[in-house]
């Protein structure tokens, strides 16, 4: 005789996969992300070029009246347009492996905007001449350093009018800082003051394991784990949402009683959780295929570690089942979708707790908070996946968290089935807390 759990699971899967809403999220979301990314890139390049072109029309000269004789301003001037971009940006573009034409356009836009942001200093000897040049639009602005600048550090910026565009003073500030420091300290001392821990020596009490070769770029340390966490959260939440909607529909149109005349509550629960779990895995698989294309083409520096992939799959399954069982159980107490969502909200909130504390966790993946979340079943999946992708979870913690999840799942099925058995037949006005407790204890 066929398994009834299998019949229910098969139906839930087929009905779910035929819904246009499923394909809207599964294909639409990556497409939307792609379009937004592409749009942002094109807009960034276009806008950068436009801003750079506009800047070309505006004077790059900054007038200087240095009564304190702080430094030789003229010697700091750029001799011509930049011919290369910042090395850090160049490194990113190198790793992205872009088509030659597109890379050229990006480099050109960045180069132009960077060069046009830098200013040329024009030194004046008197205020009247300098102000006259400013009025005649020969200058972007006029910076005046009084003779007592090094005592009270009060300078004045003159601009043509209140509507004048502001510009970055970062370079000026940097040049001034270097000049002031070189007056007071020797060159060697200045480096030490600016980077006091440059010569830091690390001493280990014990010899540890060899560290894995770290990813060549910060993206894989922070962005990839966050991405994994986001995808897992999205997959679990969309699957659980489908569960609740299906249950609410069956309660409101009274199909539940017909179903229970053929199956037990436990079989019904198991079939639904299994069927929609498989649907969630299908969605993940499609997303994975769609993600592999841009990774293969553009982001070749991202190495998808098979162990991380396996950890992701294991914790998705465990996390989904735990969340699904408890959501279905608590949601069954509601007569409609709104009530079902309210009753099961606590489970969802617990599951997404790591996202609220993401900055704390990502800055200290092995810190106390991350460790607590690693062993709290509802938060375990998201945090373990994040820590694993960041390379920060010891094997014993990984294995222990799996055991914790399995134990929690076992308990959840026992308790959840009891609640579900009572909840699915509740209709009409929701029970008050006392009546609900009585009903559950008699289940």
């Amino acid at each position: 005789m066929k398994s009834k759990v299998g019949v229910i699971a098969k139906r839930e899967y087929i009905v779910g996969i035929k819904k246009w809403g499923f394909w809207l999220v599964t294909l639409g979301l990556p497409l939307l992300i792609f379009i937004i990314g592409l749009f942002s890139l094109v807009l960034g390049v276009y806008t950068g070029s436009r801003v750079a072109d506009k800047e070309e029309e505006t004077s790059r000269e900054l007038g200087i009246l240095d009564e304190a004789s702080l430094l030789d301003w003229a010697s700091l001037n750029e001799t011509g347009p930049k011919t290369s971009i910042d090395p850090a940006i160049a490194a990113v573009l190198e790793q992205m492996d872009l088509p030659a034409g597109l890379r050229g356009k990006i480099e050109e836009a960045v180069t132009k905007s960077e060069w046009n942001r830098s200013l040329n200093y024009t030194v004046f000897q008197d205020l009247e001449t300098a102000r006259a040049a400013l009025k005649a639009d020969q200058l972007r602005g006029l910076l005046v350093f009084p003779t007592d600048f090094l005592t009270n550090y009060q300078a004045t910026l003159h601009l043509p009018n209140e509507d004048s565009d502001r510009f970055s003073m970062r370079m000026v500030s940097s040049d001034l800082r270097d000049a002031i420091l070189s007056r007071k300290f020797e060159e060697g001392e200045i480096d030490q003051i600016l980077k006091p821990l440059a010569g830091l020596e690390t001493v280990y009490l014990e010899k540890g394991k060899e560290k894995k070769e770290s990813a060549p770029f910060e993206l894989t340390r922070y962005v990839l784990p966050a991405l994994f966490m986001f995808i897992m959260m999205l997959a679990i939440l969309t699957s659980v949402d489908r569960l609740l909607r299906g249950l609410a529909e069956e309660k409101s149109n009274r199909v539940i009683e017909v179903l229970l005349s053929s199956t037990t509550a436990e079989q019904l629960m198991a079939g639904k959780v299994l069927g929609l779990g498989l649907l969630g895995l299908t969605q993940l698989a499609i997303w994975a295929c769609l993600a592999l294309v841009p990774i293969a083409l553009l982001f070749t520096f991202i190495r998808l570690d098979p162990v991380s992939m396996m950890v992701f799959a294991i914790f998705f399954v465990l996390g989904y089942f735990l969340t699904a069982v408890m959501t279905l159980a608590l949601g069954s107490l509601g007569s409609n979708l709104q009530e079902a969502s309210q009753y099961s909200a606590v489970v969802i909130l617990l599951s997404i707790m790591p996202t609220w504390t993401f900055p704390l966790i990502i800055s200290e993946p092995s810190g106390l908070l991350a460790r607590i979340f690693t062993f709290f079943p509802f938060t375990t999946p998201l945090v373990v996946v994040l820590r694993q992708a960041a390379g920060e979870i010891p094997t014993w913690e990984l294995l222990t968290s799996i055991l914790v999840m399995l134990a929690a799942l076992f308990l959840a099925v026992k308790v959840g089935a009891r609640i579900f058995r009572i909840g699915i037949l509740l209709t009409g006005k929701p029970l008050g807390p006392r009546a609900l407790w009585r009903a559950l204890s008699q289940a």
Partner: protein
Amino acid sequence: MILRLDHVVKKFGETHAVKNISLEIPKGEICGLLGPNGAGKTTLIRMIMDIFKPDSGTITLTSGLSSERKNHIGYLPEERGLYSEVKVRETLIYFAELKGLTRAEACANTDHFLERMEMTGVAQSKIGKLSKGNQQKIQLISAIVAKPELLILDEPFSGLDPVNMALVTDVIRELRSDGVSIVLSTHQMATAESFCQEIFLINKGELILSGALEAIISGYSGNSLILEGSGALPPDSCYRVLSSERGRHKIELLDGVSTKGFMGWLAGVEFETRAIKPYRVPLSEIFIREVKRHG
């Protein structure tokens, strides 16, 4: 006997929904499960369907059937429960598979009953688009599609026009002829009288009356007669009047008085008799009297 309930009890909090009920459903017959609203019928049905477990007592399906009771009992609930956005045939196949049928069996049975209920034309329609009457027919098919040994029908004629009522009536009688045991739960006493061989009357969780319908009605009807005529009916110690209305008298002969004897007395009084016939107490009256008696 196809199903036996032994001292079944069910409480919900302080409410005794079912109090120590014992009954046997005979095989191959149509039984009426009757009672006022809130009597405990639905709770009893849900325990038979194994949706609820009794607090005490046992419910046993006849030997010879496999242990999973649900697979052998079809159920038509009072409130329609169907997927509105799913097609008719797909829904029925699903319900049949849940009763343990293979896919092939489910498809074959579905097509057979769709044809029998004259619903083949809507097999590919979404259930939500059908009329209430057609939805009720689909609901009935969902209860019988697995060809169960025991069928529980709760208000099967609800929402049906006279043509479909006749169709459903035929189907129920056919099922009975095929040996299916049927439990009919209804508030329509005329329906119960017309279908049932045996009845179980429940009130406030207790079984207050049970037995063969004809025997019950005969027992209540007893020596009751309908007398139609003109003139005043003189009182006498051989009978008592149950009701009188415009020359139509419902009377009950007292103990020891035979119909022949009464007719002999009637011939000698000033009463122009037009008609005299036995009075068959309707089931609805029996229902009301018993509920009041045990109220």
